């Protein structure tokens, strides 16, 4: 409850619109009631009166009341729902800003699907309850007492009898809601199973085909599909009960009108117009009251969603600027002493006890089997994770530097060659200063050996890439990421297995270009292909997170079995490529 209140305070940021919308609510209710009274009185008057001239006036008045009501209804909806959308957008922006700054350790342990759910369904659940939900609640809270007051003044007896089914339906809903909720959760889960099963089966089609598993898969799918059918039917049965009870209560509310009202008419204590008022207001009040029940049903879900959103909003920004950062003109010498890192919840450290010296303007190669900790080590240099042990840049501990100083000095080419679905120019200029011109961009593209490829783009530098534009090959993506890194003109360049999809010849040309282009720059290359690091001043061989050996290429051929074996295997592969 306190949490939801906290979110409601966000609505108060738009209090002028919100209050204007809320003020419209009683006006809507009053017009509604007035319409019923007008028609009821007219019916009564018809019985007693002597002429029907006044009916034209009634017609006009009805239209006027309806128009007034419509006007306020419009305002109510426009303002209150509008504010809820504004709050939604503000909340999403706040969450997004937070996400962009949360450390990688957070992103590593959270699934992106879950985060997207928080920004979509969870925000929507909270919005629905606090926006449209509270609008309907307020509407019912005005309409109900006002209508009861009118009806009570006609006949207390009938009014009391009419409320009995309402109370009954409240109990029925309370009893049925958990069942409905359980059923709908089961349906959602079984839908998830269906989609999971299909995803796995289609993605693994080669194994399915190879092992002749189509029938096995079909049988398995039939099982999850029929489970879904069962749950769907179960949910429909719960919904059917709810539907039946709600309508039964509604219908039963008319029973006292029919019997007690008819009796009173026989006794001449009320008139036919009054009876009409009961029927018509009963109709108008009942559904908003039922809506209250639905909204009450939304409440627990909204609370859970609010918690999930709140959790994200209060997620700790572990990696932040120090209070008193050391100013530094970065030269680019790294020194690692006994550096370790363990991912959250992982049983073993990914990097353990690594000590390496990297003088400014030299190249360090990082090699080792898949999963030996190469990428993790590279990420520690940019303080994407906070390492145990000591990492110093130009003799200053990383934690004492502002993120601007540290990351401002380095550029990074990621393993997954991530590019945005944006224009090619924007992708290359992504990390550069704002004043970078096309000439400079072209130069970087050339150094990354992408000029020919870019010249074949229909729209040149304005070419959209990704889903809604051209699809780049793996090699093109990698070279583009290198161009992006170069455009930043960094002191330290970090390449995380960034050349795996580039052929050997281009690779040699690229590496050569990288070294010459910067002239003086520190380079760290993690590579699968040992040829990529052959000329590095120092090469580290990692194995299960530890340094197995380090030295130059020639030294490692002597010292490391793994290095030597891998080298010869890869040489064979390369020879085969060149056949």
């Amino acid at each position, binding site marked *: 409850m306190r949490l939801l209140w906290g979110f409601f305070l966000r609505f108060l940021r738009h209090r002028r619109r919100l209050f204007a919308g809320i003020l419209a609510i009683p006006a809507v209710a009053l017009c509604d009631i007035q319409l019923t009274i007008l028609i009821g009185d007219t019916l009564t008057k*018809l019985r007693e009166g002597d002429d029907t001239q006044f009916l034209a006036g009634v017609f006009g008045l009805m239209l006027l009341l309806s128009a007034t009501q419509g006007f306020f209804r419009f305002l109510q909806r426009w303002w209150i729902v509008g504010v809820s959308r504004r709050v939604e957008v503000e909340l999403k922006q706040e969450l997004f800003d937070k996400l962009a700054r949360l450390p990688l350790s957070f992103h590593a342990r959270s699934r992106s699907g879950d985060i997207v759910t928080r920004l979509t369904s969870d925000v929507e659940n909270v919005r629905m309850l606090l926006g449209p939900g509270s609008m309907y609640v307020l509407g019912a809270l005005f309409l109900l007492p006002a209508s009861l007051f009118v009806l009570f003044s006609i006949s207390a007896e009938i009014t009391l009898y009419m409320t009995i089914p309402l109370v009954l339906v409240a109990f029925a809903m309370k009893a049925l809601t958990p069942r409905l909720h359980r059923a709908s959760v089961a349906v959602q889960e079984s839908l998830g199973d269906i989609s999971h099963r299909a995803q796995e089966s289609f993605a693994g089609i080669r194994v399915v*085909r190879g092992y002749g598993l189509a029938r096995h898969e079909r049988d398995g799918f039939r099982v999850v599909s029929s489970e879904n059918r069962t749950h769907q039917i179960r*949910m429909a049965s719960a*919904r059917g009960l709810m539907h039946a009870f709600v309508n*039964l209560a509604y*219908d*039963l509310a008319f029973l006292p009108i029919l019997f007690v009202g*008819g009796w009173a008419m026989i006794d001449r204590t009320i008139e036919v117009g009054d009876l009409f008022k009961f029927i018509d207001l009963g109709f108008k009040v009942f559904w908003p009251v039922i809506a209250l029940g639905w909204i009450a049903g939304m409440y627990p879900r909204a609370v859970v969603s609010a918690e999930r959103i709140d959790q994200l909003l209060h997620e700790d920004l572990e990696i932040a600027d120090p209070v008193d950062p050391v100013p530094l003109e970065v030269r680019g010498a790294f020194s690692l002493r006994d550096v370790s890192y363990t991912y959250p919840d992982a049983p073993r450290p990914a990097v353990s006890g690594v000590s390496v010296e990297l003088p400014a303007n030299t190249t360090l190669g990082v090699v080792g089997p898949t999963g030996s900790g190469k990428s993790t080590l590279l990420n520690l240099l940019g303080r994407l994770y906070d390492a145990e042990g000591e990492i110093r840049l130009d003799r200053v501990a990383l934690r004492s530097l502002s993120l601007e100083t540290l990351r401002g000095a380095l550029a990074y080419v990621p393993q997954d060659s991530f590019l945005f679905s944006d224009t090619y120019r924007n992708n290359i200029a992504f990390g550069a200063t704002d004043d970078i011109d096309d000439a400079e961009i072209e130069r970087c593209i050339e150094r990354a050996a992408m000029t020919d490829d870019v010249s074949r783009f229909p729209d040149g530098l304005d070419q959209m890439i990704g889903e809604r534009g051209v699809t780049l090959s793996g090699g093109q993506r990698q070279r583009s990421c290198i161009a992006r890194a170069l455009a930043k003109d960094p002191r330290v360049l970090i390449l995380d297995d960034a050349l795996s999809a580039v052929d050997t010849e281009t690779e040699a040309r690229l590496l050569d270009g990288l070294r010459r282009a910067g002239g003086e720059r520190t380079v760290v290359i993690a590579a699968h292909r040992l040829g990529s690091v052959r000329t590095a001043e120092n090469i580290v061989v990692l194995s299960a997170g530890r340094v197995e050996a380090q030295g130059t290429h020639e030294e490692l051929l002597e010292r490391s079995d793994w290095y030597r074996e891998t080298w*010869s295997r890869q040489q064979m592969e390369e020879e085969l490529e060149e056949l």
Partner: protein
Amino acid sequence: MSEHDEDLIATKVWDTAVVRRLLVYARPHKKQFYGSFLVLVIVFALQLLSPWLLRGAIDGPVAAARDASVTMGDAFDSSPYLRTLALWAAAYFGAVLLAAVFRYLEVSQLARTGQSVIHDLRTTVFGHIHRMDLAWFDRTPTGSLVTRVTTDIENLNELFTSGLIVLLFDLIKIAVVIGLLFWVDADLALLVVALTPILIGVSLIFRGGARRAHRRVRAVLARTNGYLQEVLSGVRVVQVFRREERVSATFAGHLAEYLSANFRTIFLFALFYPILAFVTVGIQGSVLWRGGASIHAGTMTVGEFILFWFWLQLLVGPIRELGERYNVLQSAFASAERIFHVLDTEPDVRRPASPVRNDAPMKGHVRFEHVEFAYGNGPKVIEDVSFEIPPGHTVAVVGATGAGKSTLVNLLLRYYDPTGGRVTVDGVDLRDIEMQPYRDQLGIVLQEDFLFSGSVRDNLELGRSSVNEETIALALETSSAIDVIERLPDGLDSQVAERGATLSTGERELISIARALASNPALVIFDEATSSVDSATESKIEAATHRLLRGRSALVVAHRLSTVRRADTILVMHKGRLRESGTHEELLAQGGVYARLYALQFRDEDDESRAG
């Protein structure tokens, strides 16, 4: 959602051909459908009955009592009238209870009907997808295949339940209610009929606007969420390049667009309900005006007026829903089109019309005879390739990426059919063999071998009848994959996360080898992984590979020297053609490409292994 997806939304509101095809799936559940319809009819009849009973009470005992009390004055005794009134009330009570029962049946029966059809259709589509060619899978994203058996099918469910049946019924309701209104009072009914077109017009105009507005909201929302996802997957790049503020600004741009799209729908809805209410009040006002005059003139009773009034409300509901039904129909038709498009695509690789029966166990004698293959209309990937794998022999294929090595594997698995020449096993063309029994006798280890979620045991069994506890235990022992299993928390019962994330690359390859071993296959098809693993696992994989291949026919795309050395025949592929073939020694003696390679790279290693 991209522009491309937008195009996929059909513009048709009604498609008889599609409906007719869907009805084919409904036919087995015909009784359910009739049942649903009957329940709807009963609920509707009871709905009409309640106001009629109200009228009966008002015009009957109440009116009579009032007349009597006027004429009789003080002598008036109300009790007989009250008794009649009580009867009416009891009738009403009964009708209401009955309505509750049928309302429950209405919802549950409609769901039962729809779900039965949906389940059939879903399993049919799934089964059909599994019959499709590998080439078709290659060009269709997995996500969109999943959509066919999830979202699209759900939409069809809507079509059956709230779409077809209810729409049909709503139209009937409108007609019946109008008829009843004429029965009560033709004059007033004419008035209503004259005015309802305004109501329908408002509803339809709004429907068009609302659909466009909603579509825009959905499109913008999809873009916004897409960008969110993109930034999440590239958050490393964003942070290293210190571009947090820039991506926030871009996101703000998307959100602003989202907000304005939403304001349009809010505006439409805020306008629609009041206008609809205004038109309704207008109709009611006219009815009151004319009807009031009739009551006054005595040509209409108050009870009749009230009956008319409430039946009129039963007319407004379905008309208001028309627009909504239209939208449901439209998206359902789009889904149906996509589903039928899949069902209408027939695979090229088909089951043989008259399979060659061969009950003898497979010997594993493979022959490629002048085989040629091209994907679709593309260039030839392999050309004139001929070789033989005699029973029990291992053939290792080496060659550059794109030389056609995997194609040989794909053809032997009959993922594709050759475009020229033929592949035979034990002398029979693969195209004439029943696939299921054939594949049951294969042992397969593929690169990036996919491990299904479920337990490790499930993954080793893969539903094969030839595999049991014992063979698995033996296979694990032989392949030394048992070490991997023992490390896992629950042994064989440990759950494998999606894509086998809890196991390392090397461990996964070991388990794949064990899986192949478990069925004691006659023919092994092995595509060795290229990624580097640590030395300990590497030597285990080498040993396990050796045990898997020994004594069996095997086609291996080889990356490991030890595998190549041990092969009975080595094929050197180059640009889709077979360049050299022979044993290790023969090829060395030939002094060709293989010999040159070997001389360059392997001599040291070979000496070493001989010494060790």
